């Protein structure tokens, strides 16, 4: 395994061209903290973004930041925080879940469409990603989008590349829309509710005018002995006081919530964002994406068929993090069978290589969509050198 760390986009183009000529499959890596995502691949060479660093553009008044792909995420976040701004989508940190170290990069946030609890209100990484530069599998540097947030010029390749896990090309620069950091953040906590009631509470709050920015339900055994249902408010301080009172009144059937703020609130949401309740265990970890109200239904159907399963809900019930024993197919058939009638899909986020090699990590697609996916892969990467098989076998 050889490691290549181009120091410029032109270097990257030349290296990709040579890999294409030699038909050398390439792994693409930023900080390496999320390398466990997707199917295990067999590559002979690794292309790293570590040599492409630095903020390329930051205009606080325009709410836009650009950086080379290998720039540490922490550097981007610090630069924004110094001016009272932030990335809108609260990107997950995979280090705890994957027991990895190193620095997550901004490029990998884009390539993995890595989002967090705030996704339910402020959109995913793909919604804030407004521009990219990418080396495709012809060794060409191409761009899509740009530095302005309203832009419908041409096909939106930015969205395609967000969440393509390096299979379409090597990102060299990314540009994100940013938002002001709220003046105050608080979390309201209700205790002891069932999954179904907890998610119904979240639904009631999300359908209110009081704008929760995050909404999660942690059943008993996830981080505490009792169930916790959580709503996070972000706003100017006087609005928080008002909205807390209104939500408490609206949801009074569920009792008076506890209010937590500051470090206690922040660390709780980091645990949710990073699925840290599964850190350090042997469980296989799934991510189920569902219509929010179907979250508890899916889990009710699965509870009896998956002994030893643990789970919690983010995104108002629409994202279920599910831990199961890492045996056999890690519950793949049962999980996909349970959610098929409900719509939605399941992704195997963490499991030993042997399981991720034998079980479809991403939800299998219908025939026409698989054909389109394969065609898009070929359109970017005709020789199939970028992360072959990372998302689907043979693609």
């Amino acid at each position, binding site marked *: 395994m050889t490691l290549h760390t181009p120091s410029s986009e032109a270097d990257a183009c030349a290296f990709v061209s040579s890999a294409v000529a030699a038909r050398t499959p390439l792994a693409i890596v930023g900080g390496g903290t999320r390398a466990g995502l997707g199917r295990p691949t067999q590559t002979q060479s690794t292309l790293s973004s570590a040599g492409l660093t630095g903020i390329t553009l930051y205009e606080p008044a325009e*709410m836009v930041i650009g950086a080379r792909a290998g720039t540490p995420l922490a550097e981007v976040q610090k630069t924004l925080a110094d001016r009272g701004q932030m990335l809108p989508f609260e990107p997950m940190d995979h280090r705890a879940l994957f027991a990895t170290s190193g620095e997550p990069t901004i490029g990998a946030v884009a390539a993995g469409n890595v989002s967090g609890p705030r996704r339910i209100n402020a959109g995913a990484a793909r919604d804030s990603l407004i521009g990219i530069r990418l080396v495709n599998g012809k060794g060409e540097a191409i*761009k899509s989008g740009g530095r*302005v947030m309203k832009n419908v*010029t041409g*096909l939106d390749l930015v969205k395609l590349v967000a969440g393509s896990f390096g299979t379409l090309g090597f990102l060299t620069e990314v540009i994100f829309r940013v938002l002001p950091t709220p003046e105050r953040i608080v979390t309201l906590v209700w205790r002891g509710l069932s999954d179904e009631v907890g998610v119904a509470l979240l639904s009631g709050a999300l359908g209110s005018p009081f704008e929760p920015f995050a909404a999660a339900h942690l059943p008993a055994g996830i981080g505490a002995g009792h169930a916790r249902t959580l709503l996070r408010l972000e706003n100017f301080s006087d609005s928080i006081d008002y909205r807390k009172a209104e939500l408490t009144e609206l949801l009074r059937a569920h009792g008076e919530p506890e209010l937590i703020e500051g470090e206690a609130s922040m660390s709780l949401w980091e645990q949710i964002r990073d699925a840290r309740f599964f850190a350090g265990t042997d469980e296989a970890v799934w991510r189920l*994406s569902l219509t929010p109200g179907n979250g508890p239904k899916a889990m009710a159907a699965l509870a009896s068929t998956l002994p030893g399963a643990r789970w919690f809900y983010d995104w108002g019930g629409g994202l279920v993090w599910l831990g199961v024993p890492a045996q056999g197919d890690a519950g793949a058939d049962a999980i996909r069978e349970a959610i098929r009638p409900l719509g939605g899909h399941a992704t195997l986020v963490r499991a030993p290589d042997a399981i991720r090699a034998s079980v479809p990590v991403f939800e299998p697609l*219908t025939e026409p*969509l698989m054909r389109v996916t394969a065609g898009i892969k070929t359109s970017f990467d005709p020789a199939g050198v970028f992360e072959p098989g990372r998302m689907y076998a043979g693609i």
Partner: protein
Amino acid sequence: MSAIAFPAPDAGILARRDAIVAGLASLVAPEALITSADERRPYETDALTAYRRLPLAVVLPSTTQEVAAVLRYCSEQGVPVVPRGAGTSLCGGAIPQEDAVVIGVSKMNRILEIDYANRTAKVQAGVTNLAVTGAVSEQGFFYAPDPSSQLACSIGGNIGMNSGGAHCLKYGVTTNNVLGVTLVMLDGSICEIGGGHLDAPGLDLLGLVVGSEGQLGIVTEATVRILRSAEGARPVLFGFPTSEQAGEAVAAIIGAGIIPVAMEFMDKPAIEICEAFAKAGYPMDVEALLIIEVEGSDAEMDAQLARIVAIAREHGVKTVKESQSAMESAAIWKGRKSAFGATGRIADYICMDGTIPTGQLPHVLRRMDAIVKGYGLRVANVFHAGDGNLHPLILYNCNDPVEAQKAEDAGNDILKLCVEVGGCLTGEHGVGIEKRDLMTFQFNEADLHQQMRVRAVFDGKWLMNPAKVFPLEGRVAA
């Protein structure tokens, strides 16, 4: 006006018209097929009325299956297809060509399902934008993207163009508010992409389809997010002595951590035109007007407005006028949203749609003025100040071919200027035919070829809306 070229119609297709019409007639209900010249006439153009071509035939299917059958047939016969929503495209996105079949979704206008608990609505593509909000407003919900044409434009068209609106500073554009679509591909395959959930199972094909201008297939149904409305909303008018001061105030408001739900800018010519039409009480003694809307409870709006007013005062605001009633608020928005229509009462106009980095605003306003004056024409500016999406309206007389050409040339110069300062050709209207030949100013050959190779995955024969988006020369098929 004839500056924008159309591909020469395929003589073979024109010669086979009777057979093609007969083939279509065998696939759809009789009332779904329009063949007489008189009845085809309304489909010969859209809101870019300077260009028109009578299509070969028009089909208005009622079901996804009919759309699939017609697309499969056209694909087999090698007949171009032009998808059409409500025909309100400002960039000519729905303008047909003589050898093409128009497939319109206007009869597919039912709201299929509203799910308040999960905050989604499933609608057919021909439902109008405003009808979605209309269907859920009694329960206090709304559909966020609000293009000015929202009374008429369809959700299918919105998805095709990734439409925006005045309130997308806070709520995003179409692509941020659509969760799923039923897409019929050229070979007649029917694909469900997305649904009630928030993220894609693989590549973000939904993100690709939104804004693809009818080149990848035809969307027949969509699942869209509906949001609970704020407790209240209040637009406030801020009149400034100069455009620069208005621009600086916008930057300062954002810098203070305030994201109003909308920040709309009008220059003096636009203020005069809109006030004459809407009688909204716009101040007439200022050079620039901002309409800033805040949301929330009364106390929250008061608090947010106090912050905004203080900032505006630091930037020399001359007039601050708060709406005192729902009627006044409606008039304020009516003035802004009818800017295009009101302009149409005094002159013909073309409406540009470039986006610029907002820091470039004073520079761009000066340059635009000089460009338009250089052609001996007038311009009125309305735009979304928070996001830099400009809508210069270039006024001209469409019965004067020389002036019409000048207007188009001035528009092209303005769009090139937008790209030059770091922006783009189109913020929310789409490329269509209008900006097609300017694409090479924003993208180089490698960029465009990558887009065209992706396009070819869906339509290797260039049959779907083929005269749009990409310059006619230098196209790649795969």
